[in-house]
């Protein structure tokens, strides 16, 4: 049984971890800042202008963006896994991230860049793309109201490929000069320029996470199967709709700014489940914090590993995620879940 106290403690613990990793991340980067300079900036003391600009103008917004994106993608992963009753579901596997990326590419080419309004607009278009993709997966995979693992994964792959092809089509028609930029974006990029995208993303993620968390208890029961959940008093159809939209919102609002980053929504929920169990009332906040921490870590690695060049953060998450996934496959899934 999960108590309110446990939920608070778990959330608090993971928040501390996030703060610690973020603090470390603030001290790392291409600019040669000393630790004391960074500390001075953070404490509001006298510090060289370069340090202040780099820490407050570059690193801090980027770390915030990574944290929010990591949390958002992870909660989307938890939500999709609960919705589909399938531990292999996440925005990337289900093709929802590709749908969001498609929306975002269209939005970018239509000029949605720069202003606050444009940031909202870009998120909205990406959200729409995510919804369409999620709906497509559901329609393709649903067999008599259930979503069997095989058809779900296939539907996700197909939808993802379809939207990737659509993106390819668009970029093949685009000016060569813009092409490079979009290709880099498609590899996943947290290179933020200011706090504006952070604000928009944080708002979207807060709304999405709130909506998902409110259904946490119902999601626990949904794990027993839709019929059983209905028989225990859960309005399953309504819950499914809310989760569907919320998870698409989370995916859309993150991918709109960072491009598609894979493995976060897949791996982090599983790792956290191993530690705290599957009760969503504890899992969701802890996984969100863990996802935030993971992406801050991955992005920091992406920034410093080959400085001054940068690796796409999606590469780091894949290199971390894939081996862990293989490990999961060989240990837990062998025992045959659902």
């Amino acid at each position, binding site marked *: *049984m999960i108590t309110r106290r446990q939920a608070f403690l778990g959330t608090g613990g993971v928040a501390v971890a996030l703060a610690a990793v973020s603090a470390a991340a603030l001290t790392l980067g291409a600019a040669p800042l000393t630790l004391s300079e960074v500390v001075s900036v953070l404490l509001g003391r006298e510090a060289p202008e370069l340090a202040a600009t780099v820490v407050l103008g570059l690193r801090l917004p980027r770390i915030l963006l990574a944290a929010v994106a990591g949390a958002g993608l992870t909660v989307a992963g938890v939500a999709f896994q609960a919705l589909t009753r399938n*531990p292999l579901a996440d925005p990337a596997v289900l093709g929802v991230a590709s749908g969001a990326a498609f929306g975002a590419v269209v939005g970018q080419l239509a000029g949605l860049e720069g202003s606050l309004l444009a940031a909202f607009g870009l998120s909205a278009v990406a959200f729409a793309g995510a919804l369409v993709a999620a709906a497509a997966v559901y329609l393709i995979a649903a067999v008599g109201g259930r979503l069997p693992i095989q058809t779900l994964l296939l539907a996700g792959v197909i939808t993802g490929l379809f939207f990737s092809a659509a993106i390819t089509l668009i970029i093949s028609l685009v000016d060569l000069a813009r092409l490079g930029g979009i290709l880099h974006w498609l590899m996943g990029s947290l290179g933020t320029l200011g706090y504006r995208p952070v604000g928009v993303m944080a708002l979207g993620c807060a709304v999405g996470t709130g909506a998902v968390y409110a259904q946490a*208890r119902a999601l626990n029961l949904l794990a027993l199967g839709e*019929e059983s959940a*209905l*028989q*225990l*008093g859960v309005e399953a159809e309504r819950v499914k709709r809310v989760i569907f939209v919320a998870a698409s919102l989370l995916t859309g609002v993150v991918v709109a700014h960072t491009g598609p980053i894979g493995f976060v929504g897949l791996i982090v929920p599983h790792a956290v489940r191993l530690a705290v169990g599957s009760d969503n009332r504890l899992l969701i906040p802890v996984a969100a914090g863990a996802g935030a921490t993971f992406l801050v870590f991955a992005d920091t690695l992406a920034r410093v590993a080959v400085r001054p060049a940068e690796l796409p953060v999606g590469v780091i998450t894949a290199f971390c995620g894939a081996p862990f996934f293989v490990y999961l496959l060989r240990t837990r899934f062998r025992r045959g879940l*659902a």
Partner: protein
Amino acid sequence: MSPEPLLAVRGVDFGYGGAFRLEDVSFEVERAEVFAVIGPNSSGKTTLIRLLTKVHEPQRGEIRLGGIALGRLSRRALARQVAVVPQELTLAFPLTVEELALMGRHPHAEGRFFEGPEDLARAWEAMALAGVLDLGQQPLDTLSGGERQRAVLARALAQEPRLLLLDEPTSHLDLRHQREIVGLLRRLNRERALTVVLVSHDLNLAGEVADRLLLLAGGRVVRIGSSDEVLEEGLLEEVYGCPVRVEKSPASGRPVVMIRWPDADEGR
């Protein structure tokens, strides 16, 4: 005995859109009764359970629980009165016995996001009744078929229902566990006046345990009555398309149905 039946099904029609339909199903279940629904496969038995728990809604006719139409009860309100022990437990994620039992508290926990100490106490009570209290922290996938069945029963009992619906409660159990479940059900029925509706393809179990039986075939009610009235040789042969022999059990006096096995020459 209270004048109004606990469960009243009147003129219910339902179909999924294919050829099969439930047609004009009507019956009543009295309080504290043990009522069995039997019939060949695909006669609509599981569909009936779904209709009784508002998973589907009848396309015609009405179902009333304690005099109130199901359409007027919220899902939660219904779940506070009716609990289901399904045939199989499918789990997407690992759960312990205690966590499963606590899920049965959901209908009572309106407005509570986290379970309280009372929920835990009731869950433990249910687990004790079902005989799985000492397995509380065990993950379900490490239990035997019988233990898992009792864990699901604990969940149902945690709902504190008036009516318990069981879908093929003994189909995966060995002899000893079958006997245990029957004893448990009888005790619950007698000591707590729990009304039990059980769906089973095991005619002898149904005949032995039930006060009344309903024989369902091809989506229609063929006969309702006592085990002697329903488990009648001619009727069973007609409905099941299989030669049988019905005799009285020397132990309990209830009818026992035996298949008349074919020899090598049959069907030439």
